[in-house]
């Protein structure tokens, strides 16, 4: 299960909107010039990498979670399934007949295992779709794997796991994982087995607060963390620097808040392609060199 032969770099960072996807996409594009790279977008609630790469999501496969299918001919109405369900997805009627409320089912399969007469079969529920896209930028090839959660679905981790698995199943030299914001177990799951976590922050009190949270998470997960200071110029970063040193996390890049970056956002072209000599591009190039030295 723990495949240490795979080289995985994750881009994360507590606060939404700091530029995780921006960094992940540009890193992947730059590294794809010399290596086989798979970029995995695990921000399944609101994936954006495909947009930053100006591509559409076509085709794709359904991603499932297990849902119980009750065979009433075998059901002895003991009510165990409704009692064991931790999500409240099975409710038993007065007569003891179990009824499923599909949206609440988290796919844990406890009901399946507890049923004394094996009256519960495994059916599947579609929770989202996983898309695999081949991106071609100038002469660089990059594979993008995107998970998209169905609107109305509550549980996120199953799709993150399935999307990550799909991405890692593609043969490559390096995997770049783009996580969602926050530090919940969804992010922890996305960060599992990565070699380096690149935490993106911004020099604002909000960035500082969320940087602390992501550093705490990576410390618990025992994963080496680098920091990218994005949007330099927005404010003071002295506290961030202190925090970084407290957690032994190197700050590997300082990217200025610039029109060039905004421009690349609006145009939908990665800055390392649109403007390879921009300050941001140079800083990102430094990160790739570090990755080459220390990960690959």
């Amino acid at each position: 299960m723990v495949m240490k032969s795979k080289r995985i770099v994750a881009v994360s960072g507590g606060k939404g909107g700091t530029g995780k996807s921006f960094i992940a996409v540009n890193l992947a594009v730059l590294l794809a010039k010399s290596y086989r790279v798979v970029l995995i977008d695990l921000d399944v609630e609101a994936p954006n990498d495909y947009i930053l790469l100006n591509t559409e999501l076509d085709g794709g496969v359904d991603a499932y979670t297990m849902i119980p299918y009750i065979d009433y001919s075998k059901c002895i109405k003991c009510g165990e399934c409704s009692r064991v369900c931790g999500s409240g997805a099975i409710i038993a009627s007065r007569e003891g007949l179990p009824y499923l409320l599909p949206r609440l089912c988290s796919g844990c399969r406890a009901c399946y295992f507890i049923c004394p007469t094996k009256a519960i079969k495994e059916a599947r529920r579609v929770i989202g779709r996983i898309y695999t896209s081949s991106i071609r930028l100038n002469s660089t090839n990059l594979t993008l794997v995107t998970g998209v959660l169905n609107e109305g679905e509550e549980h996120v981790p199953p799709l993150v796991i399935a999307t990550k698995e799909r991405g890692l199943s593609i043969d490559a030299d390096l995997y770049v994982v783009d996580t969602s914001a926050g530090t919940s177990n969804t992010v922890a799951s996305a960060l599992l087995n990565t070699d380096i976590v690149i935490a993106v922050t911004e020099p604002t009190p909000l960035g500082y607060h969320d940087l602390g949270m992501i550093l705490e998470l990576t410390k618990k997960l025992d994963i080496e963390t680098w920091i990218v200071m994005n949007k330099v110029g927005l404010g003071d970063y002295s506290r961030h620097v202190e925090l970084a040193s407290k957690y032994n996390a190197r700050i590997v890049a300082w990217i200025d808040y610039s029109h060039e970056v905004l421009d690349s956002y609006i145009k939908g072209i990665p800055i390392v392609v649109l403007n390879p000599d921009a300050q941001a591009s140079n800083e990102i190039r430094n990160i790739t060199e570090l990755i080459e030295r220390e990960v690959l």
Partner: protein
Amino acid sequence: MARVVRIAFATEEDRGLDSIISSRFGRARYFIIVEYDLDTGSIKGINSIEGPGTLMRGGAGVKTVQTLVNNNVDIAVAGAFGPNALAALERMNIRHVELSGLKISEALDRVIRLADFK
């Protein structure tokens, strides 16, 4: 044959018919169950049960509905019901009335009237 309905009122206190109906269904502390005779308009019985304190991740509303099912409840009364609770109530054919802030004794007539139209 007498038509008797069992009405569960969500409350935070256990003071019988003087209990004030709670604004929340899902994690109400108690449910006061009133057995009401529709023909004579009289109360045949009253008992209280504790709301299920849950440690589960989600579906507190559903667990609460399960408790009502296990107690043969026909109508549930609280100020607000979450979407999961509503789905479960519907599935189990239990009617619901959105009402809170009144004492059970004051609300009874209104509940019967409102539940009839649902």
